[in-house]
């Protein structure tokens, strides 16, 4: 491009002052106020939904089995865990309907891990779209989460069918409807985390490498294929571990689907606090750096 050191150029002959009233003008690329930002996002709702829908359809086109992988993936994951933890290490001892317990764990964890990973990468992987068009950038992580929710519907149905198929074959009860609000709270939480990570990764790309490790730690601490009650003796540690939002989602779903129990209100309350806290924090944190996305530093 240009040289490294600017050579001396003569001063201009004259400097003409230009009185300008900037009141009618907007600063190009400026970040709007937080409420204006939310309004702008609402105005772009059609863009968000279209982006989510279009990418669900084209998501797995490169694989021969296409979208079937959304279901096959957790099935194989579950099978692996069943072989190692269920048969070999017998972590399932003392858990009623361990297969159902495992299926819910693996399927629901996959939803969160996909949503968070893709949400976190949404800014970095859409640089081209960001540079081409002016729209509130939070539209991209939101679209990713809606896409994951849409793609998650058949996955959840498959999960419920599998639970019905495997012995002891739970009965369908009205309690199964609790799956819906639990899932929504889970997605809201995922969106919040995705927004925070999207901003972090847009400046420090190295974090993508750490993300998979963090998700693995999260999986092990969420009781996906074992039960804390059998393992942890210390009461305080157990109480802390049970504050984990994903553990709460799994607990609520297992209670309502497998054990025909109404989930405790405390679980709902803590999960709601997690979800709302994450999404509010996520939006504010993401919005603060709105001007920097997709830009050359």
């Amino acid at each position, binding site marked *: 491009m240009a040289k490294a050191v600017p050579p001396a*150029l003569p001063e201009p002959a004259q*400097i003409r002052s230009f009185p300008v009233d900037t009141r009618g003008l907007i600063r190009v690329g400026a970040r709007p106020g937080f409420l204006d930002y939310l309004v702008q996002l609402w105005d772009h709702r059609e863009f968000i939904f279209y982006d989510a829908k279009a*990418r669900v359809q084209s998501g797995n086109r490169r694989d021969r089995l296409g979208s079937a992988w959304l279901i096959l993936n957790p099935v194989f994951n579950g099978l692996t865990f069943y072989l190692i933890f269920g048969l070999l290490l017998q972590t399932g001892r003392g858990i009623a309907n361990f297969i159902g317990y495992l299926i819910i764990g693996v399927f629901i964890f996959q939803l969160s891990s996909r949503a968070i990973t893709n949400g976190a990468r949404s800014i970095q992987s859409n640089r081209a779209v960001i540079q081409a068009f002016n729209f509130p950038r939070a539209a991209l992580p939101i679209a990713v989460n809606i896409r994951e929710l849409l793609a998650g519907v058949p996955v959840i149905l498959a999960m419920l069918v599998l639970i019905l198929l495997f012995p002891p074959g739970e009965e369908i009860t009205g309690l199964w409807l609790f799956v819906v609000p639990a899932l929504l709270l889970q997605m809201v939480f995922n969106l919040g985390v995705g927004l925070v990570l999207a901003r972090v990764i847009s400046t420090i790309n190295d974090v993508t490498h750490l993300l998979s490790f963090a998700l693995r730690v999260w999986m092990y601490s969420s009781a996906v294929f074992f039960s804390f009650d059998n393992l942890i003796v210390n009461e305080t540690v157990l109480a802390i571990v049970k504050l984990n939002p994903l553990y709460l989602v799994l607990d609520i779903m297992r209670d309502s689907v497998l054990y025909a129990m109404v989930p405790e209100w405390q679980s709902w309350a803590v999960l709601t606090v997690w979800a709302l806290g994450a999404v509010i924090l996520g939006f504010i944190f993401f919005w603060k750096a709105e*001007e920097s996305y997709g830009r050359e530093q």
Partner: protein
Amino acid sequence: MAVSSDLTEGLPRKQATVVIDRVSMTYRVHSTEVRATAGRTGILGRMRRSIGESPIVSVYALNEMSLVVERGESVGIVGRNGSGKSTLMRLISGQSNPTTGAVYASSIPIMLGVNAALVPELSGDHNIVLGCLAMGLTRNQIGERFDSIVDLSGLDKSIHLPMKSYSAGMSSRLRFAIAASIDPEILLIDEALNTGDAQFRDRSKRRMDELRLQAGSVFLVSHSLETITEMCTRVIWLDQGDLLMDGNPAEVTGAYAGFARHLSKGNNQTASKMRLEARQKLIATQVLERTPGRRSA
């Protein structure tokens, strides 16, 4: 040099559409230059070198300049490669943030070029809807314009294939057609980026002419001085990131053509003298705030 405000004060002014206020652009990039690395001593420097971290150098792409463009003006930008033309366009369109200063505009400037990258996995028609939604059009407006966008892109039946199957020319035509589908008040055209066969050039030129006539202000980068003189009411000459001339098209393109001719003949001294002369005659702009204290610097 004298700062005179009497030139403009008191005169009835037209409305400013684009105000470039003390804008400069410095890129910080990694350099592979050995000389820059050799200067690094001490343990820290050696450590950095050994993990392959290259030194960061500053590239001055655009030195501080101010410009005010009013409604009805068509501004041509001329200069050699690396003179800062594209950087200036990126700053005006908001694709880059200036290192210092700010760009104000009366509405969001739209850049017409072929760098409006889209989503490769999606088909051409999905990309049209997505791109238009991102620009803030409604579904009805898109429905009205869809056919003309497809016509302009000249893609016919290929519009239903995924964009990653397109040739470079095909996708740049589609990008142009999408970007050209809205009627912006402030239009930026970077012709240097324009590609395509003769047939498409005709079509795109017709559309550009239409847009140019509707737009309040136009910025045009072109390597064809003929196009610039023909289309613009004002021309600026940039060289190595500095503003050299700002004036009527015939005068500026004439000076630039002379400069380029001497350069190509190898008369570097004559050329650099012309460069200095042009700068000495420059009447630079200084932006005066009419409502002081409003802008956050």
